[in-house]
Structures are given as C-alpha cells and as structure tokens.
C-alpha cells in the first residue's frame, strides 16, 4: 500500500507540471464558461457540455493515457528494479495518471458551473455529468493502459487507442442505426440493451440524460434503456455497468502488467 501511495503522489506531482493536462483543464473551463456566457441555463449547459464530454474525455483519456504509458516505460523498469510488488506499482501508476486527468475534468467543468450557480435545480444532472466524465476517464485510461502494455510498438498502440475512440464514439452510433434498421421487424430490445452495455460512452450518455428531461435526446438505445428499467433503476444499471467498465479493463491491464516482460 505504501508503494501505491508513493507512486500515486509522484504521478500526481509529475502530471501537475504537464502542459497538456493544464490545457485540458483550461479547455473545459473555457467551454463551460462560454456556454453560460452565451445565455445557457442549467439544463442547456449540461446537455451541451455532455456532447463535449462524450467526445473529448474518451479521446484524451485513451490517447494521452497510451502516450503516457509508453513514455513511462523506462522509468517503470527502474521502479520494478526496486523491492516493490508489481501489482502495487501498477495500481500506483494507474491512479497517478487517472486521478489527475479526472481532477482536470471535474474541476474544469465543475468550477464554471459552481461560479454560475448552475447546480441549483439541476444539481443531480450536473453531478451525473461529472460522475459520468470521471467514470469515462477511469475506464478509458484503463483501456489505454491495457493497449499500451499489450503492444510494444508505440505507433501501433496509439493507433489502437484512436481506433477504440472511433469505435465507441462514432462508429457505434452507426452500428446501432444499421442494426435497428436491418432487424427492425425482429424483437431486438435485448440485443440492443446488450449492445449498449458494451459501450461505456453510451452508458455515460444515458446516465446523464436520465437526469435531464430530454427524452428526445436519449437516442434509440437510451429510450429503450429507460423504457426497460425506468429512470431511477436505469441510472443505477448504467452506473453499475460503467463501474464494470472501469474495473474490467483495469483488471486486464493489471494482469498484463504482472505477466509482461520489461
């Protein structure tokens, strides 16, 4: 546990000096504040910010995460040459990357909302947005770490991280539409629900939209999800599935870290 704590603290200190992380934080501040400046009210800001979060958070977490793991490889070798357990070290390295990224997002998006008293009646929706963004960060950083630990070729690994982003953020919607139109005459509710659970980005979207009165924006899978589970249970199921998307890839990455040669 001491190893984990030490490595987390060192990771946070290192990331605190990272210009890209500062830019990530500043971008969220600017975007959220601009939405308020341009006359947005609570729910509008949450919905607009949600679109940004669903595109930007997975992209940054996947690509930056993979690049960071590749850049740390030699230092990891040095740390592994110390009397430490691999699992403790891995946990420290993972949290040392995921926590600062999450903090940059939560503070970047949260501070303008606080400053503009955006919590008010939309407190739950804002909280859901921050939780969804944090969940996406943890999940995507774990996926990126797993990819970078599996693939020695840096370019290939970053390419795979980008492909994962494309698949979850863009291609997925097309696949849902294609599936729905191709099998529209069949009872496809269950396969569609299963499809939704395979995508953390869609889960994050439903988790937030369930807190906002915006059924029209739910999309096919979101509407189906709400109809099947209802709003409260649906939120819990989405939250649980998103948590699994954090734990599952983390576990895979941790196993890979334990087994791989450095």
């Amino acid at each position: 546990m001491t190893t984990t704590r030490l490595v987390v603290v060192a990771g946070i200190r290192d990331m605190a000096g990272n210009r890209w992380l500062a830019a990530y934080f500043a971008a969220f501040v600017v975007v959220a504040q601009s939405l308020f400046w341009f006359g947005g009210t609570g729910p509008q800001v949450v919905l607009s910010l949600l679109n940004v979060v669903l595109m930007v958070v997975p992209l940054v977490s996947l690509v930056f995460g993979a690049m960071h793991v590749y850049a740390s490889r030699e230092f990891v070798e040095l740390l592994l040459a110390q009397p430490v357990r691999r699992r403790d070290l891995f946990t420290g390295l993972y949290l040392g990357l995921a926590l600062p990224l999450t903090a940059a997002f939560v503070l970047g998006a949260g501070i303008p909302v606080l400053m503009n008293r955006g919590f008010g009646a939309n407190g739950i929706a804002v909280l859901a947005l921050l939780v969804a963004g944090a969940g996406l960060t943890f999940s995507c950083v774990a996926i990126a770490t797993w990819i970078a630990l599996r693939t020695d070729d840096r370019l290939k690994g970053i390419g795979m991280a980008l492909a994962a982003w494309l698949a979850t953020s863009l291609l997925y919607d097309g696949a849902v539409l294609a599936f729905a139109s191709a099998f529209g005459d069949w009872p496809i509710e269950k396969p569609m629900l299963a499809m939704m659970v395979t995508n953390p980005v869609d889960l994050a979207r439903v988790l937030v939209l369930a807190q906002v009165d915006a059924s029209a924006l739910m999309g096919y899978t979101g509407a189906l999800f709400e109809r099947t589970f209802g709003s409260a249970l649906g939120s819990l199921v989405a939250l649980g599935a998103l948590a699994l998307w954090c734990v599952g890839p983390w576990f895979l990455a941790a196993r890979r870290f334990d087994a791989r040669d450095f």
Partner: protein
Amino acid sequence: MIALRGIDKRYGTQIALHDVSLEVRPGAVTALVGPNGSGKTTLIKTILGLTRPDAGTVALAGVPIDREGEYRRHLGYMPQAGHFPEHLAVGEVIQLVDALRRGIAVDDDLLHAYDLGAIWEKKVSALSGGTRQKLSAAIAFRYAPQVLILDEPTAGLDPLACGILKDKIRRVRQAGCTVVITSHIMSELEELADDIAFLCDAQLQFSGPVVALLERTKQPRLEGAVAALLRARSGSRPDAPPRYDVENIPTLERP
C-alpha cells in the same frame, strides 16, 4: 553470488537466450560482452526479474529469485539510459526511490561527486542526457547494494563523470560488492573487470577470468580477445560477414 542455470528466453520466434548458465563470483566485477542483440540486456533483466525466462532458474546468494521482488533490496540497477518523469525535480526522484527502499542507509558519494545537490530542485525535463545518467548512477549506488547491475553505465557521460564512476565501481568492489557490467568499450572493461562472460547468438560462448580469455585467444588486449571470439564465432557460420583486422587498425597521430 548470482547463479543462472539453463536460461531460455524467446520473444515470439526470436531466440534471445538459449541454455545460458553462468556463475557470477561474489565480490568480482563480471563484464557481460557480446555484439548488439546478443542477449546482454535480456540477461540483465532476467537477473532483475524484469524479464521472466521461459526455462531455467536464477538464484541470488543461493536463493531462487521470486515474484515478490524483496530480493531486489540487495540489488542496484543502472539502465542504459536514465529516464525519469519529466516534471519531477531531481530531489523528488531520489526521495521517491528512497521511500520505496524504506529506511536503508544511503551512500551519498556519487550525489556529492556529481554535485546533484546543486540541481536538487531542477526538473528532469531541464537536465541533459549526461546529467540524467549521473542521476541514474547516483540512484544505483545509493543503497549500498550487494549486487550492482550496470547496463552500459558510461554511455553519455563526460570523461570526468566517467572517471568518477569507474573509481566508484572499484571502491564498491573492494568493499565486497558483486558487479555485473555491460559495455561496448573494451578498454573500460579491461580496467574494471575480473571476469568476462561473452554472449553471442543468444548463447554463452565463454565465461571465466579475463586473464584466461587473453591466454586462450593469445591476445594482449581485451578488445583483440573479444574480436577473436567474434571472428571464431562468425567464421563458423555460412553467412559470415567479411573479416576486418581490428588489431592492426592504424592509430591517428597528432600532426
């Protein structure tokens, strides 16, 4: 001190080490030499537990190394190039490793010799390659290890820093530390090494005292002896490259 028995290691279809058995004498400096890609770094990483062999065992002071890594308390490691988190200060890097080592008395010799205290607050990103290498050396020697593993330690160091490092290696050896060192600079190894292990084509071709190698190859210098081993090895292969007479390369003279 270090005993490797029947080490096999493959990366996919490529054989990195094949049936390597090596005994590293306690308190001696053992040079690990061989052409690029011969498996030196893989062997070093196997001793450190960074790379797991497909077959064979590694024992330190008679105790097989385990997955827990506690045995690395007795090891110091200096990699080929010092890489540290760019936004940490020199002091933060050292304090991190100190904390991971938990309460071991530290040897500040190299820290002072390289004047790293003067750049304690400086970020790693502002350090030159040579200074990073000095930091790496200071960390490797800092915990008074029983076994030191140095992977091309003088690469990137200026002559003065190089001299300091070589002097330190001699002193820890006198104090009973076992040193395993790789380098492509044979004159440097000639100064430091008691024993030599020659790896080629993933196999250990020779291991023993440097003097024994010189006698066996009938060469006065280590460079010539290693070249003779390489020639003997490559000469036995059908795809052997053309020979170059490394002993008779003319020296440049000052006009």
